[in-house]
């Protein structure tokens, strides 16, 4: 018995190490982009710091055939799902290697190959799409689950209500993950809504659970149950992933104007510090391994960032393509005047 348990845990080890490595890679990339933005090498960015554990926890519970209808802070999840780091950097740069050909401002990623829907700016408007996607996948007899992510601010929108209600009415294979980082730009979550976000699920007749989004193992367990329920035909769940936005809202934001309750990097609440402690207590890693993972991340990020930075901007013509499958005569005429 003991032996079996130990073996099972041992086999889980690579999974946990990979999760931690994705968190570290994301954090390293986050810091790199923020500093590059200060040097004028990047236009804009929405840091992810503080939300690594919750996203990686979700991603650990997903299968390859599942889909994510995410939002602009989902870099850790993307990296963990296997989206190449270049896809993210090229999007930030808006260069000719970017999937979306430099059309969207930074932080609006797309990866069809990795089942990640392209990110829009209007908050929460991905939720009704996720409901439609879940409906379609079930109709097509796929075993896929859709996960949709959004912030705490998103819970005030009509799209949140619509998405939750539709998912519940049609009992869809859909999991709602509120990346509750405490703020919507400057507005604290207490001013966003007077109730705990998980309670909102009650109104739609679906389970609502709170999870410690700073602890990737807890998050993984919460996600595993919700995703399993969705896949087995038991309908949607709302997960309130309690976390903290450790960075500014974006590179254009100065949080000192509205908050002092910071979670500092390296402190006990930092999801990476919590993750390290977990790995050590599970005997999955020691300081040496953790150090190695951190150093590798720095090397990868530096190399990839430099390489992507050298990629030239997109051909100007691409700014006018893909509006329709075939360009309209009006746009053809207009483009002739521009180029």
């Amino acid at each position, binding site marked *: 018995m003991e032996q079996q348990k130990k073996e099972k845990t041992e086999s889980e080890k690579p999974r946990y190490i990979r999760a931690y490595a994705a968190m570290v890679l994301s954090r390293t990339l986050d810091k790199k982009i923020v500093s590059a933005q200060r040097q004028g090498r990047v236009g804009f960015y929405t840091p992810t710091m503080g939300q690594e554990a919750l996203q990686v926890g979700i991603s650990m519970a997903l299968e390859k055939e599942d*889909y994510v*209808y995410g939002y602009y802070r989902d870099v850790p999840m993307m990296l963990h799902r296997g989206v190449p780091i270049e896809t993210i950097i090229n999007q930030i740069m808006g260069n000719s290697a*970017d*999937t*979306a*050909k430099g*059309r*969207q401002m930074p932080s*609006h990623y*797309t990866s*069809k190959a990795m089942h990640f*829907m*392209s990110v*829009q*700016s*209007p908050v929460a*408007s991905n*939720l*009704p*799409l*996720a*409901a*439609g*996607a*879940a*409906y*379609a*996948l079930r*109709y*097509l007899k796929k075993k896929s689950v859709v996960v949709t992510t959004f912030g705490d601010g998103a819970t005030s929108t*009509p*799209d949140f209500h*619509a*998405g939750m*209600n*539709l998912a519940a*009415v049609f009992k869809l294979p859909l999991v709602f993950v509120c990346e509750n980082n405490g703020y919507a730009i400057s507005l604290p979550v207490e001013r966003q809504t007077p109730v705990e976000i998980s309670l909102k699920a009650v109104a739609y007749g679906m389970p609502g659970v709170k999870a410690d989004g700073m602890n990737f193992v807890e998050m993984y367990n919460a996600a595993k149950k919700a995703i399993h329920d969705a896949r087995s035909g038991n309908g949607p769940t709302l997960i309130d992933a309690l976390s903290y936005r450790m960075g500014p809202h974006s590179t254009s934001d100065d949080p000192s104007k509205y908050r002092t309750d910071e979670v500092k990097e390296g402190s006990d609440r930092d999801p990476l510090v919590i993750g390290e402690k977990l790995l050590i207590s599970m005997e999955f890693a020691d300081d040496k391994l953790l150090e190695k993972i951190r150093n590798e991340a720095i090397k990868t990020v530096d190399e990839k960032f430099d390489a992507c930075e050298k990629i030239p901007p997109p051909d100007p013509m691409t700014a006018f*393509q*893909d*509006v*329709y*499958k075939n360009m*309209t*005569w*009006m*746009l053809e005429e207009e483009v002739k005047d521009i180029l």
Partner: protein
Amino acid sequence: MTSKPMNMVQALNSALDNLLSSDDRVILLGEDIGIDGGVFRVTDGLLAKYGAERVIDTPLVELGIVGMAIGMAIQGLRPIPEIQFQDFIYTAMDQIINQMAKIRFRSGGEYECPLVLRTPYGGGVKGGLYHSQSGESYFAHTAGLTVVTPSNPYDAKGLLVSAAQGDDPVIFLEPKRLYRTAKQEVPDDLYKIPIGKAQVLQTGNDLTFITYGSMVPTVMDTVKKNNLDADVLDLRTLVPVDKNAIMQSVQKTGRIIIVHEAPRTGGFGAEISAMITERGIDFLYAPILRVTGPDSPIPYRMEEYYAPNERRIMNAVKKVMESA
């Protein structure tokens, strides 16, 4: 191919029936479209034939209907959502403008959004200001949307089939005023009428009427009753509009009257007028005139004063014919 006389509602129903039976990816969704067959009966009988998984009665949430349809389209289906009245589409405008119209562009062409958003528009049923609006300009102004509006049963079916078999999102505006006013011989099977092509309903030499959707019969009746020697163009598609059909007629007659039910300011007639002057001002003998709905909401009791009528159209005819 068998055919029978159908009004526009029956022709649309026949199109949806053909589409559902020929392609498993086609799904209908909207308020009261299933068991009730739609408040205008366009989807009558389809729930019984194709089941609740494909003919979906949704909760009352326009942005959700549109948003869900977009998600379905992205995952490979061919949804045809219905908005019960165009007047109620506005809560879904963010979904239409910022999602539906931009999926292909913003994903670098990785994702597509092939769907047809059907909705009845315009007056004619004594619906007052919230059941009678003509909002085509809102959609025509958004890159990424195709905007179609039929004026008769035959076109309604053929255009709907084309829209549903295309690869881009289409706003399909059904002139409810014409839902049951006329019958035409309509084939029972699938056929297509190309998008982006106007129809010349009659040819003449003195002047050109450019119109679409709900105002086509009003224009045709006026032309016939007054024996006008006029070209009448039914645009059928607003975006992309049939530039060649328009310019050919402009070159021939040089006198242009545009007729639509929507309010004048910022209306689609302004776009047509600008387009003609930009590329054909030398052909014109008279200023281009617009006969349109007024810049006021459409009223209930006094509705007959709202949409263009014979008297107002003939006033415009006098003006363009008097110009040198």
